[in-house]
């Protein structure tokens, strides 16, 4: 287990729906949006683990839960803290020597220490940088919070290094600028620099390139890979784009309506998808081969993703699934290993017989 960076178990996040007065009075039970509904996965040291799915499937919520920006409803996320952070965490909270449950109630000092170790990069580089702060002060903020660098000059030095690390050169030209004075790609580099400046060992990247021009996506992805190679980093990479996932991911978890439906090494999941939903996603990826471009490919899934407030019974995909069987409507399929390291939750692949 020592090479596991993060082990997530039955992670859940339910958002309550505000009830009207009549609903309260008539005694209707409170309703929830089940954004993340019991997902489990592991992130291995130094790997890029991807969460893939349509918008609204809960992948961003999962990312935010791990970055501890929102409180989980339930589940466990055992995280192996890195050495420099470990000494800031009291013995009592450590499990198996190195692990901390990210979702438990943690004292303020531990919370702060963990923020040194786990960072997040947001999708929207236009929103994630305060328009009223200069690039310099945006990067300085984490240093001040964590008392890194005792003098202004020392912090300046760190900021310059971080900026040149994300290829914003020369750094002194950028520190005085405001976010609106630089391009979207440059902004995302600043956002990456802000995440990296605290020297984290796990970074949640929430669709970091989806809002950027196609021309610069590859550069940003390459930058992220370079940084990973340079430092001892693990990524949780969230994306809706299988092409990007294919390019960057070690392992992929495909999410649908708050659940993981398929999980495995990326080449296996993409080249040999087992779950009908994954098959549909894969077939929706634009074909890079020009000779195949004119072929009309069939996307087997119909309709739109249902609301997470009204999740279908049984297998969540069954209303849209072309292979839906009777059992799919009543019972959720378990996660089954179809080949080493490749798991699927679908009755089609479940060898054990369904209850009659």
């Amino acid at each position, binding site marked *: 287990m020592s090479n596991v960076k993060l082990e997530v178990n039955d992670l859940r996040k339910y958002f309550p729906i505000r009830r009207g007065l009549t609903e309260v009075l008539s005694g209707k039970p409170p309703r929830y949006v089940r954004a993340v509904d019991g997902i489990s996965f592991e992130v291995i040291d130094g790997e890029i683990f991807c969460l893939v799915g349509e918008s609204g499937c809960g992948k961003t919520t999962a990312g935010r839960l791990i*970055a501890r*920006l929102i409180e989980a409803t339930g589940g466990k996320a055992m995280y192996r803290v890195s050495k420099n952070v470990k000494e800031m965490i009291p013995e009592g909270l450590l499990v198996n020597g190195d692990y901390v449950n990210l979702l438990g109630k943690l004292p303020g000092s531990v*919370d*702060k220490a963990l*923020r*040194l170790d786990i*960072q*997040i990069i*947001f999708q*929207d580089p236009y*929103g*994630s*940088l*305060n*328009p*009223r702060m200069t690039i310099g*002060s945006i990067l300085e*903020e*984490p240093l001040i*919070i*964590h008392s890194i660098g005792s003098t202004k000059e020392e912090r300046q030095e760190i900021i310059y290094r971080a900026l040149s690390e994300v290829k914003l050169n020369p750094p002194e030209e950028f520190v005085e600028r405001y976010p609106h004075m630089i391009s979207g790609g440059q902004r995302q580099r600043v*956002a990456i620099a*802000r*995440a990296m400046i*605290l020297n984290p060992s796990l970074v949640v990247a929430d669709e970091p390139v989806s809002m950027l021009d196609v021309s610069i996506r590859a550069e940003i992805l390459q930058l992220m890979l370079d940084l990973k190679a340079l430092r001892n980093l693990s990524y949780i990479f969230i994306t809706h784009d299988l092409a990007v996932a294919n390019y960057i991911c070690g392992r992929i978890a495909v999410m649908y309506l708050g659940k993981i439906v398929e999980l495995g090494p990326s080449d296996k999941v993409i080249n040999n998808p087992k779950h009908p939903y994954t098959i549909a996603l894969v077939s929706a990826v634009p074909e890079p081969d020009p000779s195949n471009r004119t072929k009309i490919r069939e996307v087997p899934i119909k309709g739109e993703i249902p609301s997470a407030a009204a999740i279908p019974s049984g297998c969540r995909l069954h209303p849209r699934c072309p292979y839906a069987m009777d059992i799919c409507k009543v019972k959720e399929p378990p996660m089954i290993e179809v080949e080493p390291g490749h798991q699927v939750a679908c009755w089609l692949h479940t060898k054990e017989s369904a209850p009659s």
Partner: protein
Amino acid sequence: MSLLSKMYESWSWIRKEILSQVSGKVAFVLLIALIVVSVYAAILMPPDYAKYWDVGSKWVDNPYNAPPEWASYLGYVCVPQTFYDLRTVKPGVSEVSGRVVFTYNITYDLSARDYPQGLRIRANIVVPQGVRNARIRVDIIKPDGARLPAIIDTYVDLTNTSLIDLNLDKPEGIVTAVMSAYRDLVKFLSVEEISIFPMKYIFGNLSYSETLKKVETTPLPGRYMFVIDFSFRVFNVQPQEILRAVEKSKEFSLLIKGTCYGLMGTDYKGRDLAEGLFYGFPIALAIGLLVALASTAIGVVAGLVSGYYGGFIDELIQRTVDVMGSIPLLPILILIAQSIAKTYTGEDKPIVMLTAIFAVLIAFSWGGLAIIIRSMTLSIKSELYVEAAKAVGASNLRIISKHILPQIVPYIAASLVYSTPNAILTEAGLSVLGIRHGYPTWGNILSEARQNGTISQWWWILPPGFLIAIVSLTFVLLGLALEKVVEPKLRR
């Protein structure tokens, strides 16, 4: 430090925006003038100003209910205040049966067709050993040749005191003096009339009116001669020695009170309104800013807490604002002020009443700002960059102070500006009604004018209101300029 520089940045931006508009420029000039005058007045303000203003002894030399001197241009007949320093006048010296007599002949030219309001002789002389008592006798020779003998003739014991203060607004000997000066009119003169209006008989032309069957007076302009005999019963003292003492005395003067006074006139106690209005500047500004700062501070904190933390406290604050907004403020304010005015008897009543009035005002005026700050906080809180700050470990306090506060600075400024005149206007409004706290504010001057004056005493009743309006105007204009900063949609 960083927060301060952020604030300063915001402020200099606001200032630039304000100064780019005409209303902003006017407001800025007015504001600077207001501040300069207030600071100047605050420096000059006598200690314990409230007492200074209230206690009459300082004002006895002034005419009461007198319009300002420049009122003569408006058609008012003005008799100017005339002051004679008798120390510099060389008296005729004589000795009569053991008394040393100094005779001062003072000429007074009355040019306006009105009566001076009063007379006053005051001396503060430390006499040499051996002087037993002093006697002052005043005769007046009128332009028509009539001589009023001994309108006052009084002895003062100078062994214990050096002060002589003769208020001759109603001199003792006036009836006999007039009777003896106008022998032909004696049977028509009314003793009562003379003692009620002595100045009319001193400075008037007396004639018998057939229709009214009594003596009438009309103002008599011309040259008057005041003959003041200042005599001392002495024992072995040289007259020259006494004269030196008189010349070196702290005060020895004759004052003929006019009917107009100073720049702004006087009130019913003879208080110089210019002074009251001048010292009213810092008080008004302090009142306005105090209440504005307090209600703004509460509004900001309540809005931030309500918007940032949400939940039960948010609901509580929202509903409180809601309920407070439906309760009529002015009636409650009047009731509280009046209740305290009628029941509180302590020495510090003015301060207690003012404090109560402002407390109610503050309690009722933070709601609007709180709602605005709350909605701004809500929208900023949900910004991605705030989440990003949380992700790097920023505390709530840091997010509020670094990310939210700088953005609401223009609203805070606007709220300060809008609510500053509020307290001044309300305090004045209550004063106009007649609820008096007694602290010498502009409103207090107004309330005394309403109570003890008539509306025709415009110099008393209008200027305090006008100054209040000017202060208010300053902030209204400032607000007008700020409005375009706060609400960019109004920007053209």
